[in-house]
């Protein structure tokens, strides 16, 4: 259970250079579970995720956490579609979020060892992070996000460009985080993954939330034609 949730989006609109990216969007994010956001390219999935995380400037509307924003910010983490690797060793990448919080050294080192083991990066710790393979980079990015023990974790297509084995490694980590009570919100293009992980789902189309629902009903009995077509694999524009 997360204290900082529920998160409420009220009439949220984001415009850039006169173009509407998303909105108006109204949505409430419940206190636990795993929400999958699906939709075609350019439908506003990433923007929605960034709005929730608070790193996107709103043109209209409001985003409200259950606690003041300042406090809520400390309990969230975000994994970007292209993992951002600090030009440092793998171990230093893991240390970084805790160093920012000035955690005691012993506590930090214990957390680094723990997460290196969980992500199978123990023998990579001294390596320059930018030299890791794609799968390893994404696991490192995920570990770096989880090392602060966030209440809410946002992931933007964490498994894009990853093969089966790497995807499974990520999904196992996500499963463990979910079991430990972390609220997860992620976008994906992989409908198989969406079915495997979702507790509930959001379908984005043209910058608006087109349909929401609990899994598995969302996938098995979609209400709208657009979602039905999208799930069938048709090209929805």
């Amino acid at each position: 259970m997360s204290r900082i949730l529920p998160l409420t989006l009220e009439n949220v609109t984001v415009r850039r250079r006169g173009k509407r990216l998303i909105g108006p969007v109204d949505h409430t994010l419940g206190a636990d579970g795993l929400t999958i956001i699906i939709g075609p390219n350019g439908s506003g999935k990433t923007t929605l995720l960034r709005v929730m995380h608070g790193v996107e400037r709103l043109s209209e509307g409001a985003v409200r956490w259950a606690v003041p924003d300042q406090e809520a910010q400390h309990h969230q983490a975000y994994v970007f579609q292209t993992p951002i690797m600090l030009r440092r060793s793998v171990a230093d990448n893991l240390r970084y979020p805790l160093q920012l919080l000035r955690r005691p050294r012993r506590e930090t080192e214990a957390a680094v060892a723990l997460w290196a083991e969980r992500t199978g990066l123990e023998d990579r710790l001294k390596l320059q992070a930018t030299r890791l393979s794609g799968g390893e980079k994404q696991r490192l990015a995920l570990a770096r996000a989880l090392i602060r023990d966030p209440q809410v974790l946002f992931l933007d297509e964490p498994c894009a460009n990853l093969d089966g084995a790497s995807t499974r490694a990520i999904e196992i980590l996500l499963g463990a985080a979910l079991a430990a009570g972390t609220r997860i919100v992620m976008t994906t293009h992989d409908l198989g993954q969406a079915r495997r992980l979702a507790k509930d789902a959001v379908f984005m189309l043209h910058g608006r939330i087109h349909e929401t629902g609990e899994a598995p009903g969302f996938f098995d009995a979609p209400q709208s034609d657009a979602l039905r077509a999208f799930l069938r694999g048709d090209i929805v524009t």
Partner: protein
Amino acid sequence: MNDIYEGLAAAFWLVVTLDADLIEISLRSLQVSLTALVIASAIALPLGTLLAIRRFRYRRLTISLLNALMGLPPVVVGLIVYILLSRSGPFGVLGLLFTPTAMIIAQVIIITPLIASITHQAMRELWAEYHDLLISLNTSGRQRIMTLILDGRRNLLTASLAGFGRAIGEVGAIMIVGGNIDNATRVLTTAIALETGKGDFALALALGFVLIALAIGVNIAIHWLSRTEREGRW
């Protein structure tokens, strides 16, 4: 060509015999330029980084001004520092004119914009890469600057070395504010100018070769030092 051979030979003998004047002049060159480098880097590295990450009203103007100042003519800088430090000038009471300190001040003014500008270019690229992550992790402005400086330290080293190269080879400004006084403010470049004027090409060339060797030596030393540090860290 004969002059060059003679210069090489003279340089060789000056170095081998550890000529007292040569060593004094070389050490003063190093002292002035390295001090200027340290002071200028302490100002320019955070400033260049700040310009890369902070958005403010006159940012573009500041950056183009900085780029323009890179080409500041040393003679003019020397002249202005001279006027400021001269007896009748606002800082005349300090009695700094014709001292190594005056030369350091002039060189700091010359190389700070250069280092800041190169730093800005390098940091802008790194900031574009790190931006989303550092925002997401809720970093403070200070933490962002420290992270960029730490991770971009090799680029910053290049910026500093460019500044050092300009400082150690600079003659116009330090000639004016230092005065090229024997045993007080004579450095390699001003000595070369003097010896060339006197027609002693061999000695001038010898000093020139020592100057080049010094510049290369400092570059290699700094690179070597930074590499050992890197291996120690990882």
